């Protein structure tokens, strides 16, 4: 039997095999592109002062970084992970697999287990906007269930309100059309229904995990399953850190380039400005963290930071309940309130900006608020002072003090002359020494 005859007789099977062969390469490539693995990971909701950072630690991450000042949640999970070469990290397919690993978390310091944590229910509520009022809230245990129930009730209430609004709006539109047909004056129409405000709270829903809030230090963690065994790949190092310093940072906005503000974070820092100009200060809470720890809290798979021993200032919540004081030698020279400002671009070919105090009564001149800040004038008769913040209840904000200077003489000739003073001093000393030697020599000669 020839090959051709065989092919004809088994045409159905042949076609299937050919199709399979043709389909093979894409299948193989697809498998190469995303090689998913079922793996143990820790889901992390790391609490920081004004937010919660959601990350996860695949088995390649041997150290988890958390802050000591906030409660964080670490959730043991079995999930599907894959390596994503474009971003050089592992990704989790939570939608495909998200299995809770039952057990308790052991926290070890040195050789001793310092804490054993049970898994609890939690939920995190996020709020729209920025500022201290929009800080996410973490609910744990029964509180989480109550908060989640409330959140769901609010969602249902909103949904019902939207439906009711849609019905009312439809009825109002029908009535309006009817009235229009009858030629009723539109001014006599009743007011339309008001749309219910959209919810400003978002929730992670109910989840389970280990709440962690520890003193700063180095620990080791592992998950012990219900049967007493240690869950494979669950042993990791845990670094808990805190800010070295907390202070008030300032965003410093120069008048002529307000779109390029600078930051003054260091407590010993200084603001140097030009005579007869103004700068605008926007204060915020600033915290100084170990650079590596902070970077790896944000992204546990980050390996690019090699700055061991370096520190980084992180801008936090804005401060809007204080006045700025100008101080010289302990005396308060004046108080500057926080005010809204409007920026006007200079018209025509002349480039530059004009910053005007916002006034709602002059909508043509100041149509909008561009920023809110303290205006700090730098005048020639007040070249040397510092600024500090005092809250509404008269409390001085620690770490808000900054030296401010109006730049002085920058003549290179004068600076060069000053630099020569050590040489002049040397010349004087050597001349004096020479005179002494002559005197001694002449007195010795005379003897």
């Amino acid at each position: 039997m020839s090959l051709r005859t065989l092919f004809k007789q088994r045409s159905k099977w042949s076609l299937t095999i050919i199709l399979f062969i043709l389909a093979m390469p894409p299948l193989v490539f697809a498998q190469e592109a995303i090689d998913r693995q079922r793996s143990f990971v820790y889901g992390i909701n790391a609490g920081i002062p004004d937010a919660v950072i959601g990350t996860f630690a695949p088995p390649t991450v041997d150290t988890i970084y958390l802050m000591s000042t906030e409660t964080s949640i670490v959730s043991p999970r079995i999930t599907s992970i894959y390596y994503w070469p474009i971003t050089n990290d592992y990704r989790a397919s939570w939608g495909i697999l998200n299995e809770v690993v039952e057990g308790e978390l052991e926290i070890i310091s040195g050789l001793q287990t310092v804490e054993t944590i049970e898994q609890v229910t939690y939920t995190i509520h996020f709020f729209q906007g920025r500022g201290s009022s929009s800080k996410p809230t973490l609910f744990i245990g029964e509180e989480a269930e109550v908060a989640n129930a409330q959140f769901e009730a609010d969602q249902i209430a909103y949904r019902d309100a939207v439906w009711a609004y849609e019905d009312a709006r439809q009825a109002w539109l029908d009535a309006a059309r009817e009235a229009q047909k009858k030629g009723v004056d539109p001014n006599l129409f009743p007011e339309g229904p008001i749309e219910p405000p959209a919810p400003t709270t978002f929730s992670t829903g109910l989840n389970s995990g280990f709440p962690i809030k520890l003193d700063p230090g180095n620990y080791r963690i592992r998950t012990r399953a219900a049967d007493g065994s240690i869950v494979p790949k669950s042993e990791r190092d845990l670094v808990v850190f805190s800010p070295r310093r907390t202070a008030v940072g300032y965003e410093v906005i120069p008048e002529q380039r307000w779109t390029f503000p600078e930051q003054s974070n260091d407590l010993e820092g200084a603001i140097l400005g030009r005579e007869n100009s103004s700068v605008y200060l926007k204060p915020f809470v600033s915290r100084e963290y170990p650079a590596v720890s902070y970077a790896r809290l944000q992204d546990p798979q980050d390996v690019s930071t090699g700055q061991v021993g370096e520190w980084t200032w992180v801008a936090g919540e804005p401060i809007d309940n204080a006045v700025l004081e100008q101080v010289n030698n302990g005396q308060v020279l004046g108080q500057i309130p926080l005010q809204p400002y409007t920026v006007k671009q200079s018209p025509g070919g002349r480039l530059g900006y004009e910053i005007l105090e916002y006034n709602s009564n002059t909508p043509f001149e100041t149509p909008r608020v561009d920023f809110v800040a303290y205006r700090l004038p730098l005048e020639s008769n007040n070249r040397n002072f510092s600024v500090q913040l005092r809250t509404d209840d008269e409390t001085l904000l620690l770490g808000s003090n900054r030296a401010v200077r109006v730049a002085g003489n920058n003549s290179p000739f004068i600076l060069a002359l000053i630099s020569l003073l050590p040489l002049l001093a040397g010349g004087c000393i050597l001349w004096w020494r020479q005179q002494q030697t002559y005197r001694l020599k002449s007195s010795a000669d005379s003897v």
Partner: protein
Amino acid sequence: MSADLTKTHNRAGFLRWHTIRRIATQQSRDSLFGWGIYIAATVSVGIAALLIFNSVRFVGESDLNVISQPFLFPLQFALTLAMLFVAVEATLSIARPREQGSLQVLFFAPIDEPILIGGNFITGLLVYVFFVVLTLPVLLLLVWATNFVLPTVLLWAVIPTIFAVAVALAFGLFVSAAAPSARAAVLILVAGILILLGLQSAYTALLNIPPTSRFFDALLFIRSILASLQSILSWLSPIRMLDIILTSSLNNDWAQLLKQIGISLVATAVWLFAAVRMLHRKGVLP
């Protein structure tokens, strides 16, 4: 009997200390009445003035200069130069007289290796203090003229820098005791300084080079190596020690400051001991 022994011991200790003081006084007088220290001080103040001028001039161009650590670099530069000056003098203090043959003559007096090393060590510290006393008022004058900012804490931070200088001196004395000639001693010191400065500068420079992309960093390996070397440098390099002492003082990081002072003391003791042993081994003849 034991009281007599203690008395003799105390007397011997007093005599040794007296000789160390004599050497230190004489050597520092020699430095004071030479042009070297004044030229070095003028150069250090000149460079500090250039750095301050640069900051003040920048305000003229951009209307604003937010400085995170004002006056740190000018002061650090001036003190580094002071440290290098005394280190070079220490490096020559044994090698040169040995080469000239005068060290052999000196050892006819009741002087032994620890006394000579101790005397030269204290000389270096005194010269450093004089250097600081000479340059600090001029730096203050510069600050006044330019209306620049000088944090008070930085003035206090000058005091513990003496511990970093002590390490540089002890290392210089070791090199001086070990080197076959004055020229070789200076060459070894310069090579050492260049290596240490190179490692430190390379790390600082790399910190300012951003990664290749957000996810990949072509310099990661070099960064990691240099970052690891920084902790070693805090034990080896007096320049790095000076940097840590000034920065931790400015940041009110007392734990770090005390740690670095402790490291400096240990390093000084090790180099001084090594210098004494080396001088004993090499002898006083060229």
